[in-house]
């Protein structure tokens, strides 16, 4: 698993495409389209990976509560989404902030981790929501696929240099998000 992680990250970065959010995958159906949605929106995938990196370094209690909060808040965001739109820069700001948080390696109290998980989930849900419940279900599942897998990988890391590696990847995510934010604001 540990040896596969760098390859998986590399493949993900290599295969990623430009931000064609809400673009349908032909023949996929609404659930599959929803499932892949968090993977193909750069700011979302960055924020979700960074959240997983950060939560994976927290205490068990904080981690458990934050995952539950994330699951519930994502539903709230997805349900509320069709009633409004977020400014385009918000997901980049989210990815920047949570990436920077992961870079600090801060082991926060449960109250903070829950608030962060809630905020990320509501805003990402709101930004990706669809009026099709099946697609929304797919988005919910796709977001969990990213966050839970990253948490699972981070929890398995024991060597000190690998834990430093988690923080370095957090810094990379923040750096990428900052430049995407600058590009978005410029255009």
């Amino acid at each position, binding site marked *: 698993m540990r*040896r596969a992680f760098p*390859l998986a990250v*590399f*493949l993900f*970065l*290599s*295969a*990623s*495409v*430009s*931000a064609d959010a809400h673009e349908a995958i032909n023949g996929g159906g609404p659930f599959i389209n929803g499932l892949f949605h968090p993977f193909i929106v*750069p700011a979302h995938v960055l924020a979700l990976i960074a959240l997983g990196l950060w939560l994976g370094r927290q205490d068990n209690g904080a981690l458990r509560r934050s995952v539950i909060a994330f699951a519930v808040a994502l539903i709230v965001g997805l349900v509320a989404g069709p009633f409004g739109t977020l400014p385009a820069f918000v997901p980049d700001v989210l990815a920047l902030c949570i990436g*920077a948080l992961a*870079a600090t390696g801060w082991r926060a109290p449960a109250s903070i981790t829950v608030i962060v998980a809630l905020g990320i989930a509501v805003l990402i849900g709101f930004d990706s929501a669809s009026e099709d419940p099946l697609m929304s279900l797919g988005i919910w599942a796709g977001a969990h696929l990213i966050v839970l897998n990253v948490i699972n990988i981070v929890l398995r890391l024991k060597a000190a*240099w690998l834990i*430093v590696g988690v*923080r*370095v990847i*957090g*810094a*990379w995510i*923040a*750096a*990428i998000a*900052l*430049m*995407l*934010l*600058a*590009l978005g*604001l*410029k*255009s």
Partner: protein
Amino acid sequence: MRAALALAFSIFSTPALAHTGEDISGFTSGFFHPLFGWDHIAAMFAVGLWGAFLGRPAIYLLPIIFPLVMAIGGALGIAGIHLPAVEAGIAASALVLGVCVMMAAQPPLWIAAIAVGFFAIFHGHAHGTELPHAANPFGYAAGFVVATGLLHLSGIAFGTLTRNAAGRVIVRGAGAIIALAGIVLLAGSLAEIGG
């Protein structure tokens, strides 16, 4: 593992159409951008080597600080904000960081962080200027951030030689070579500015 990586490279590689002003591609172009410039390679490698002399926590804080500050420089480049003598700044980074490695300098962490962060702005600006032209800006940004990080990692790995006396001489020698390269690159940049 090597076969899997080679396969991954071959499957997902995209055309590398670098250089400012052209419609450059995504991850591959970004990834190779720092690797096609000796100034970038020398400075990034020197950051890792210097980390080895500075020890903990610098050895892992510098590779965290560098991309974050580099992104600020990148954002300035993307926004079209002019930074004077970017190429000279990058060349100077190779010179200064090379000298620090050569001297096995061990300043307080905050001074090392400020020095590395200062030069990171120039490296980021050079990369960021090209980003708006990328067909896939996300891939391009990810590519050059990852390549920069891997160059740091290479420097840190080479820097593990400092665990014995002979290794320290080799690493300091590498610093001297980087510093010399920095002098040549800086002279070239200054001549270009003057010309």
